[in-house]
């Protein structure tokens, strides 16, 4: 397929977790795992994703739904190149697929500005790009003279603001969101929402993981429904979400009113 018509393509994608490495670890097993010995039986192997196939075209927003533990976050990690597949292939066309996170890798002894530089370097920006980004990020964070103070002097809210300011200036071609983020007071939230929408408009493709079927139906152009690591359904939001609700409605009480959901989303 031509690269221009493709944003993400997964083909027979599988990710395997080896539970023997984490559970019941004996010295012998750990050593065997450390030197890479492969015991014969497939026991203790857990496939977080298996046989996952889908194709996403540029300009599309993919919503990923499924119960806890269905493999949604693992899929984001594979697309972001944090976990490599054990089976099949993933094709990502676009610069810097980024899973949006706040303040990962912050160093408390470094100043706010130094943390902006370090954090941007973790995201793969070059020195030139970093120098261009520092001031817009600093300004967006509204932290003023605190930017030259070590991070350990910051309140939790200030830290979050700095992290968020960095996150919304990354402008990746492929934007990956694990639930929609929001921090700060009302004014900062409004500014953030605005900046986030700009970033979403510029992105070549977006993948959103959410528990809110309503949010996904509103914003996404395609929906991928995962169940136990396999694709249960893939297609237009309306049809997939309707089936998804049908299958879960017996298990969960009716959704709370929208106001309450919004309040909960804010707290998150």
């Amino acid at each position, binding site marked *: 397929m031509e690269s221009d018509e493709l944003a993400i393509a997964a083909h027979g994608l599988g990710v395997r977790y080896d539970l023997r490495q984490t559970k019941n670890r004996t010295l012998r097993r750990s050593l065997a795992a450390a030197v890479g010995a492969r015991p014969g039986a497939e026991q203790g192997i857990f496939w977080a994703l298996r046989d996952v196939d889908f194709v996403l075209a540029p300009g599309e927003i993919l919503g990923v739904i499924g119960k806890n533990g269905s493999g949604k976050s693992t899929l984001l990690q594979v697309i972001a190149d*944090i976990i490599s597949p054990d089976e099949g292939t993933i094709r990502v066309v676009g610069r810097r697929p980024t899973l949006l996170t706040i303040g990962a890798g912050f160093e408390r002894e470094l100043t706010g500005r130094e943390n902006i530089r370090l954090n941007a370097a973790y995201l793969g920006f070059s020195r030139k790009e970093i120098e261009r980004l520092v001031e817009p990020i600093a300004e967006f964070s509204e932290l003023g003279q605190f930017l030259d103070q070590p991070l350990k002097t910051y309140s939790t809210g200030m830290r979050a603001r700095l992290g968020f300011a960095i996150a919304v200036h990354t402008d990746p071609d492929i934007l990956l969101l694990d639930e929609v983020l929001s921090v700060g007071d009302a004014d900062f939230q409004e500014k953030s929402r605005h900046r986030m929408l700009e970033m979403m408009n510029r992105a070549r493709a977006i993948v959103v993981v959410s528990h809110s079927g309503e949010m996904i139906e509103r914003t996404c152009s395609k929906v991928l429904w995962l169940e136990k690591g396999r694709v249960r359904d893939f297609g237009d939001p309306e049809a997939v979400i309707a089936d998804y609700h049908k299958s879960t409605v017996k298990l969960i009480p009716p959704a709370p009113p929208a106001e309450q959901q919004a309040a909960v989303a804010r707290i998150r």
Partner: protein
Amino acid sequence: MNAAANTPHPVRIRDATLSGRIRANLSDLVRFRHLVWYMAMSSLAVESRGTKLGRSWWVLEPLALMGVYTVFIKVILHRGGANFPLAVLAALLSFEFFARSVGRSMSLLKATQSSMLSVAFPRTVIPLAVTLSESIRLIIAVAAYIAIAAPFGVMPSPVTALALPFIVVEILFTLGASYFFAATSVFFRDLSKITDYLFWLLFHLAPGMYTLAMVPAKYRIIFAFNPFTTFFEGLRAPLLYGLAPGFSSVQTGIVFLVSVILCIAGYLYFLRREGSFNKVVV
């Protein structure tokens, strides 16, 4: 007619094969070269902040250790030859560089597993950045060493430069060991406890607190197998005695070769395990 066609987007295809991973990782390392630099500079900056004496500790720490050994050997046991404290100091600089690089590579890789699971930088930069920052510390400490040695009548000469190739080889050796131990410690958490003692044992089985000349000739072959013998003497002989190291060029050649092989093998081993680092639940 199609603007997108003029600006090709980079395509990433990841497959599980090792050769695919090597190719991908090498291009990642080029892309993330600035991260290596920023990480190294940050760790140097962080270390010197929050302490009253700051960067002076880079020199003061080995000096303090030298003091401990001098009290123990010279004052209590009445042993040790001329310039004993400086002879010990040269070995300590070399050893501390190795032990700190490997130890910090292990702990930093562990730390990223809990706090950096959402950031996609190649984990292979960790031992690189750690070894780089420790190398900078080592170079500064060696410069300080030359200055400290001058009042004792040990003047820098062209022979001093002979230490340089030995430093380079130790850096390669250390990088390879850092890759190997860091990758293994992810799956075998007890490793960092074991290495603390293993490395000290290797230190004492090399001419650190004594010089190679003090070892009876028939035992020297045992010391030849310890790479630290080459690193310690490679630093000490040119810097302190103004001499070329007192062992054969064959031994030097072997250690050079082993270091290069360890560096490549350690990197490949790390790369092979890297795919599962982020899947190990801490």
